[in-house]
């Protein structure tokens, strides 16, 4: 046994101190765990909300097709409709190829992936778009009370498990009926707006970053620009909406169009793009520039052929993160007048628009509780897009991270 120079009391004191130290470490780890738990809960809640039980009274006899029969990437809808029309004894080609007939069919029928508990398992159902929903029940509540629910079904009623997020959801458009609502137009609108945002903010943002890093003299005006960018980065996003409302919607008279939304969001993400691009340019070592000058290259030749190629990964990463922010931004677009319902898909910079977050906000505000399920389906689409972008940024950062 080793002889300790410490008395028992001292050893006890040190032991206690060590225990308290361990407890302190554990306490500081709690917030991290809580934050991760919140993210996990949020994803879990949103995903489970995309499924609900419904008691419906189908108002006409409906046909249905098993999952494998209807399943085909890309043309599920046509596939199922063809089968349905064949079964009804109509000519599928006549309906599908005639735009007017096609529209009428779409208005009167919906094609959805459903699971009827007192009917068949998961399958595609073609049914009347005016089916009366008697009740909409949360997914867990439905599981717990399944027997009671089934026992209480009246004649002609059906208990269905409705996954709101299916292929049809991506192509359906805004509607007053939750069953017919989808994210189609909003998705196209987001693509238009974000495309223009990239077009505006990438050249201006990178240009400003090049100027500040490579050209700007160290004078008062340069410092003023830098201070400006820092302050703009902290301005609440809704204030950019007010600017957009005043300048783009009213003064320039662009009204509520894709372009006024894109200009507003471009100004919003510009500080982020500039700051990220400057970091990337700063990371290119001066020795490369000096080597270029030594070979007789001009300033612009050095910037365009030496600095930018070496900074492109960093700039792209920053741009992706800025775009991810613009895709999820809601408040400024609400102020510049974006609406949840538009009659047709946006087709250019001057057309009416809606975007995914605005559409989600509009659904959350609906009275009909089923719209909460529709909103959650929209959120899953939005979050999927964002996760892909974050993944790309993360990959780029890891892949091109290098030390000189």
């Amino acid at each position, binding site marked *: 046994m080793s002889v300790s120079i410490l008395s028992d009391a001292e050893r006890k004191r040190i032991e206690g101190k060590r225990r308290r130290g361990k407890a302190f470490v554990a306490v500081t780890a709690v917030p991290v765990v*809580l934050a991760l738990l919140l*993210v996990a809960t949020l994803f879990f809640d949103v995903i489970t909300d995309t499924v609900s039980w419904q008691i419906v009274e189908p108002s006409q006899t409906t046909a249905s097709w098993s999952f494998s029969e209807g399943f085909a990437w890309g043309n599920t809808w046509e596939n199922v409709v063809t089968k349905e029309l064949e079964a009804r004894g109509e000519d599928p080609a006549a309906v599908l190829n005639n735009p007017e007939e096609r529209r009428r069919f779409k208005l009167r029928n919906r094609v959805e992936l459903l699971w009827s508990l007192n009917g068949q398992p998961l399958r595609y159902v073609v049914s009347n778009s005016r089916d009366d929903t008697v009740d909409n029940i949360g997914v867990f509540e439905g599981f717990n009370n399944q027997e009671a629910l089934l026992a209480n079904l009246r004649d002609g009623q059906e208990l269905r498990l409705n996954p709101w997020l299916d292929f049809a959801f991506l192509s359906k458009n805004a509607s007053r009926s939750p069953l017919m609502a989808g994210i189609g137009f909003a998705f196209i609108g987001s693509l238009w707006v974000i495309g223009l945002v990239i077009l505006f903010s990438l050249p201006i943002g990178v*240009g400003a970053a090049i100027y500040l890093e490579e050209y700007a003299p160290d004078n008062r005006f340069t410092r003023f620009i830098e201070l400006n960018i820092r302050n703009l980065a*902290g*301005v*609440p996003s*809704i*204030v950019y909406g007010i*600017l957009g409302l005043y300048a783009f919607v009213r003064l320039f008279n662009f009204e509520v169009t894709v372009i006024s939304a894109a200009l507003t969001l471009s100004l919003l993400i510009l500080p982020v793009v500039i700051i990220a691009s400057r970091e990337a340019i700063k990371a290119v070592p001066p020795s490369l520039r000096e080597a270029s000058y030594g070979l007789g290259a001009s300033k612009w030749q050095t910037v365009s052929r030496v600095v930018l190629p070496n900074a492109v990964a960093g700039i792209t990463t920053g741009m992706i993160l800025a775009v991810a922010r613009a895709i999820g931004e809601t408040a400024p677009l609400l102020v510049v007048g974006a609406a949840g319902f538009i009659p047709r898909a946006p087709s250019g910079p001057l057309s009416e628009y809606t975007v995914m977050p605005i559409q989600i*906000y509009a659904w959350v505000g609906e009275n009909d509780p089923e719209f909460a399920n529709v909103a959650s389906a929209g959120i899953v689409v939005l979050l999927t897009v964002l996760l892909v972008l974050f993944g790309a940024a993360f990959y780029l950062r890891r892949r091109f991270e290098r030390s000189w």
Partner: protein
Amino acid sequence: MQPTPKQAAEAIGINKSISRNVGDQLIRLVLFLAASVSVVTTIAVVYSLSAETISFFLDPAVSLWEFLTDRRWTPLFGESQRYFGISPLIIGTLNVTFVALVVGIPLGLGSAIYLSEFATARTRRTIMPLLEILAGIPTVVLGYFALFFVTPILRDIIPGLNLFNPISAGLVMGFMILPTISSISVDSMQAVPRAIREAAYGLGASRVEVVLKVVVPAALSGIVASFILAMSRAIGETMIVALAAGAKPTFTFDLRETIATMTSFIVQAAKGDQPAGSIGSRALYAVGSTLFLLTLMLNIASNQIVRRYAERYE
């Protein structure tokens, strides 16, 4: 006399081409214009806010005194019931911000201490991107989560809690500002040099003592700056509040009541499609100006604290 590099270059015939020089000057000008966009943006923000705000106060129905002292805010109502006291919106904003900071500051600081001082490099590399995801979740999604998940749970626990309330919104907002506090605080704690920690260990300090009595005080300027920045973000946050806290301007400190914040009023007024030049539309700009000034002051304060009080280590 030694020739300058430029003279030397000219002497051996480099850089003689005038067209190249003109091209370079043109590029310089274009890049300068790109950098000036941010200045133009600032001017445009200030101009658009102030022009309409001045018109708002010039309206005979409004007085600055009423704006500052009245406890009713109903600019979108009919003419006889209009009141223009901004205090309910300020109080509402403070209610939500208070809850957000009560949640966000301990969590943010705790996680920063863990990530900077106790976590292994590998854990840190795994957790930081996950926190970035939390920071990247669109606020409309957080609002949905607050309204449909957090509020029902809170209503089971807290009696008399309204469907729209600042507790639920503030709670979720606390998690929203956590990554802001955490990442800035981690940066400033990582900037504390190793030598100082080792000196403390050498004097017999325990890990807890080193963190609480050496590292945190040394990084305090960055930590406080992160709190202020987080507060500014909480004040300017819109969608969580608009969805979960409601839009009913109420002068109350009862956190269970439905309230309106400055941002949720702006959304409400904008959605109502107030015609340009109407008093409702101008009220939107007046509230926007107040919000802008408040957040700008906080952002400047945060920058100043970092600049003035940051410890410099050689």
